[in-house]
C-alpha cells in the first residue's frame, strides 16, 4: 500500500508530500503521524507541500486535523512551501487553517520549529510579532 514517508529528525518529524494526495493516503498519513509522534515524543512536525498542486476541502480539513492532533500530543505543526494556487483554493473554500503555522520553505519551517522548542521560548501574541 502507498504511504507517505515520515522522517525523524531529532525532536522533529519531517513529512514531504511528493505525490497527489488522495483521501485514503491522507487518512493513512494521519494515522502514521500520530503514532510516530507518540512513539518518539516529538516536539514538532514539519509538513512540506511544495509539490502539492491540487487540494480539495477534504485534504484541507485533514491538514487542519493533523495539526490539531499534533497539538494534543504537544507537537507544533508547521506547513511549508504551499503553492499560490493551493493557497487561493483553500481560502476560497473558506479554510484559513488558523491553527497551523506556515513558512515559505523547509529551512524557515525548521527555524520556526526550533524557536518553538527552545526552552526560553515564550508564546507570542496572536499576530506573532516579536518585539
Amino acid at each position, binding site marked *: 500500500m502507498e504511504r507517505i514517508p515520515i522522517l525523524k529528525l531529532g525532536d522533529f518529524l519531517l513529512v514531504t508530500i511528493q505525490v497527489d494526495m488522495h483521501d485514503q493516503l491522507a487518512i493513512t498519513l494521519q494515522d502514521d503521524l500520530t503514532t510516530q509522534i507518540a512513539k518518539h515524543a516529538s516536539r514538532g512536525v514539519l509538513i512540506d507541500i511544495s509539490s502539492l498542486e491540487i487540494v480539495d476541502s477534504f485534504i484541507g480539513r485533514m491538514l487542519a486535523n493533523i495539526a490539531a492532533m499534533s497539538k494534543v500530543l504537544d507537537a507544533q505543526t508547521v*506547513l*511549508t*512551501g*504551499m*503553492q*499560490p494556487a*493551493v*493557497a*487561493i483554493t*483553500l*481560502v*476560497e473554500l473558506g479554510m*484559513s*487553517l*488558523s491553527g497551523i503555522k*506556515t*513558512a*515559505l*520553505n523547509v529551512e*524557515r*519551517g525548521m527555524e520556526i520549529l526550533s524557536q518553538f522548542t527552545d526552552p526560553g521560548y515564550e508564546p507570542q501574541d*496572536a*499576530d*506573532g*510579532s*516579536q*518585539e
Partner: protein
Amino acid sequence: MISFYEVVKKNEGAILSGWIEEMVRGVRRADLMTDTELKQQAKELLGLFAKAAESSSDAESEAFLQTREFLRDIAKSRMDQGFTPSETALFVLSLKQPIFNALRDALKGNPSDLLNEVWASGNLLDRLALFTVDSAVEFRDQVIGRQQEEMLELSTPVVKLWDGVLALPLIGTLDSARTQVVMESLLSAIVETNSQIAIIDITGVPTVDTLVAQHLIKTITAARLMGADCFLSGIRPAIAQTIVHLGIDLVDVQTKAKLSDAFAMALNRMGKRVVALKPAGAGMVLGSKAKDN
C-alpha cells in the same frame, strides 16, 4: 409595379441632393466634417443601398454585406471624429425623406403600392440605422475593454522594498476580477522573491466596503498560508471609520496607518532597524546596509 430601388436608381441625383439638403438642415455638423467628405459618403452609401435593395429586402442578408461594412467604417470614423451614435444613425435616417419624396412622385396614382414601398424602404433604412448604432456601441465596448485590461495591468505592481519584504500599493477601486489578479501576482511574487513579509498599501483605494474587505482578508489569509506575513497599511481615517461601522473584523490582520510604519515594523520583525549614520543633518542611512558597505 415599380419598386423603390428602381425609383432610387432613376432619381439618384435628386435623392442625393435632397438628402444632403436634409442633412444640412438637421444633423449636419460642419465643425466635424467637410462638405466634400459628406457628399462622398452619401453618394457611396446611396449607390450601395440601391444595389443591395435590388436583390434582397433583408438588411441582415448577404446582399447587404457591403453596405453594412461601409456603414461600420462610417460609424467608426464618425466615432473618432466625435459624432454621437444618434447623429450617425440620423445620417442614415435622413435618407428617408428624399426617398419618400421620389416615391410619392413616381407612384402618384397608386396609394397602396406607395404605402408598400414606403414601408419596405423605411424598414430597411431603420435597420441600417440601428446597425450603425450597434457598430458604434461595439467600438466603444472594444475601447472600454482594452482600457480595462490596461488598467488591470497598470494597477497591480508588486514592489520589493527590502530583501524579504514586498509591497503592493493598490490604486483604484477593487472588484472581484482585480482582486483575483492582485492576489495571484502577490502570491507568485512571494514565491519568486522568497519574501516572508508583504505589505498591502491601500492609500489609493477610495472606498472599502464589505466585499473589498473580504477580498483583502482572503489575500492576506492566502499569503499567511504560504508562510508570509501580511500587513495592511495606508488606512485613511475615513476608511477606518467605515470598517468599524460595517463591522468588518480585521483583528487577525496587522494594520498600520502608513506604509512607512508598516515597513519599519517589517524591518523590526526581521531584526533590522534604521540608524543615523552621522549625528545630525547628514540624512538617514539604513543600518544594516551601512555595515555591509
